[in-house]
């Protein structure tokens, strides 16, 4: 039977607990949000001993199901002040699942200034004082942990940003190449830093195959599921070739590519930072245009980007990062953006929040628009070193806006708005406004239907149908985020009828249960409502389900679109 590993950082004790019956059917986001809602006082300070940091693999993680190796991390967010779940690839989730660990709950905080590492194994967790690796970047931590404990060791780590408790700090997860994937959003790295944990190692010695109640049924369903992923043109061909960055040119054509701190919807130099150009560059320099963030990913949207000498610069080079430093900061040099991406991974800071922040910093006059080298300098000289300016920048877009008196600050619930302008792609605006996570495109990716013609088509420039579209997607996403699946399985799931039933059949075969499609929808609804209730108790109400005013008053070119939803129309979202 799976277990809960509980770590108390106040008295430095650990326990192995049975899984309460109410949590048995949950995994991933469903489980982290349930635990945070049950055990964390909503009004607590997110960096206090009262907050808890929870890690949970998904319901299908550790099985042979394609793309099921994602790990959820949850806590109260120091950035949004609400509940947070952030999921990432890497090797940790599958190791935890195979060790029979349903969740790790880290609570309390040390009473002294000492720092620690946690060592997770089949026997439980040990808490060890850590001195040597303090202050180091994430790549150096991963190398050192591998040297200390062996190449196969799983690693969750924070960089200088997390140690300094910056609200844009993330948690890095070692990937199969000993590089990095991130629990990026919401400042969870600062929560880990507040518990004074530099890294968590995972020893998979004694890991067993995950038990499957009905192996035959599982195999059939897994095959049908993989087939759907490979058959769909987006997951089967588009993502492996161009990665997520294919979106630069699409959003630019659609006039929804936020540019120069959200002052216009198209970027003149779009072609230089596009997925097409990136693909050609990667191929010419001997990098990899397809790459998986965990074993078992058959979509492989990730890539390895080399410099002009053919040396590694970065991997997992995503559209949102490239959009943010590219169009939103007007940086035209993809090599500068790649270098900054690698630095952000090393420092341990969310690349979306930080990219949006730099757009605001440029508007504030801290550096000029287009200054890619300036971004690299501020990352290394200020943020990584934790200078006073670095801490303001490391607090994210809202922090810089507040400090420098900028009014055009694209955030919801303090979290930076990514990559898709809500004035010209209105469905995603509803997601930004209403998501329990703060502005988060992944929580209800209406771009699929607004822009990409996946799951039908809803005109991005009109209000009709957007609230319903966002609601349906947010409910489905909350459920998918509980399975351990990468959210890109949504593309085939929206178009290929066999895909979703195969996913549900795999869950049923794994646990010997009989969930229906309605049960899965109800799970999604339950998760959203649980998260919303936490937020309301924390003081985030419908008044916070709003976009910043400038979206209403500043039309965005080329469509001269404004954000024109009334408060009542937005609040309709929660009628389910």
């Amino acid at each position, binding site marked *: 039977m799976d277990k809960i590993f509980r770590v108390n950082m106040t008295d430095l004790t650990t326990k192995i607990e049975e899984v309460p019956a109410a949590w048995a059917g949950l995994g991933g986001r469903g489980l982290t949000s349930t635990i945070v809602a049950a055990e964390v006082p909503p009004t607590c300070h997110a960096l206090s001993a009262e907050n808890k940091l929870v890690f949970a693999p998904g319901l299908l993680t550790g099985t042979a199901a394609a793309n099921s190796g994602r790990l959820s991390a949850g806590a109260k967010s120091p950035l949004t002040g609400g509940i947070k779940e952030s999921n990432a690839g890497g090797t940790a989730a599958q190791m935890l699942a195979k060790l029979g660990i349903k969740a790790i709950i880290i609570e309390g905080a040390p009473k002294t200034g000492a720092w620690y590492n946690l060592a997770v194994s089949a026997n439980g967790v040990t808490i060890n004082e850590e001195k040597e690796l303090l202050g180091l970047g994430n790549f150096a931590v991963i190398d050192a942990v591998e040297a200390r404990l062996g190449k196969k060791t799983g690693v969750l780590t924070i960089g200088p940003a997390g140690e300094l408790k910056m609200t844009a700090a993330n948690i890095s997860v070692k990937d199969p190449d000993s590089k990095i994937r991130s629990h990026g959003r919401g400042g969870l790295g600062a929560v880990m830093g507040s518990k004074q944990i530099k890294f968590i190692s995972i020893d998979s010695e004694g890991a067993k195959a995950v038990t499957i109640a009905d192996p035959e049924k599982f195999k059939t369903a897994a095959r049908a599921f993989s087939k759907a992923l490979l058959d769909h043109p987006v997951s089967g*061909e588009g*993502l492996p070739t161009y990665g997520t960055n*294919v*979106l630069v040119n699409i959003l630019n054509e659609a006039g929804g590519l936020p540019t120069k701190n959200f002052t216009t919807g198209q970027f003149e130099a779009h072609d230089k930072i596009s997925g097409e150009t990136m693909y050609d560059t990667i191929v010419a320099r001997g990098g990899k245009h397809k790459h998986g963030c965990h074993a078992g990913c058959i979509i492989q949207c990730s890539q390895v980007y080399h410099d002009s000498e053919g040396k590694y610069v970065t991997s997992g080079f995503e559209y949102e990062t490239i959009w943010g430093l590219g169009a939103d900061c007007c940086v035209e040099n993809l090599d500068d953006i790649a270098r900054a991406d690698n630095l952000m991974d090393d420092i341990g800071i969310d690349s979306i929040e930080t990219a949006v922040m730099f757009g605001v910093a440029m508007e504030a006059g801290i550096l000029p628009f287009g200054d890619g080298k300036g971004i690299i300098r501020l990352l290394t000289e200020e943020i990584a070193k934790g200078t006073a300016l670095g801490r303001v920048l490391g607090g994210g877009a809202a922090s810089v806006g507040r400090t420098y008196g900028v009014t055009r600050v694209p955030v919801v619930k303090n979290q930076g708005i990514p990559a898709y302008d809500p004035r010209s792609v209105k469905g995603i605006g509803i997601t930004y406004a209403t998501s329990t996570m703060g502005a988060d*495109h992944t929580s209800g990716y209406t*771009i699929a239907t607004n822009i990409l013609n996946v799951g039908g088509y809803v005109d991005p420039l009109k209000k009709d149908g957007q609230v319903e579209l966002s609601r349906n997607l947010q409910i489905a996403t909350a459920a998918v985020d509980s399975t351990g699946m990468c959210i*890109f399985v949504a593309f085939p799931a929206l178009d290929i009828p066999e895909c979703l039933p195969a996913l549900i059949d795999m869950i049923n075969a794994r646990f010997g249960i009989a969930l229906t499609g309605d049960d899965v929808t109800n799970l999604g609804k339950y998760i959203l409502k649980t998260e919303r209730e936490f937020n309301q108790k924390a003081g985030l109400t419908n008044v916070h389900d709003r976009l910043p005013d400038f979206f209403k008053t500043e039309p965005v070119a080329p469509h001269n679109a404004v954000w024109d939803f009334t408060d009542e129309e937005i609040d309709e979202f929660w009628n389910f």
Partner: protein
Amino acid sequence: MKITLKLFATFRNGRFKVAEQELAEGTDVRQVVLSLGLTEEEIGIVMLNGRHGELDSKLSHGDTLSLFPLVGGG
């Protein structure tokens, strides 16, 4: 009439990124697609002057037509 035709992702292979095209009045998107040696099924997104278009959309002088295969990200 003259239009600007932009191709993206795999559609560029062996073709071009952007070209001016001289077309007969009344030409629709489908005819342009077929003239490129592409099939209707290969078309993911049609954008006409920055808005979603259809294969049946008629083109006018000065239009910008952008064609994408079915791709996505996030």
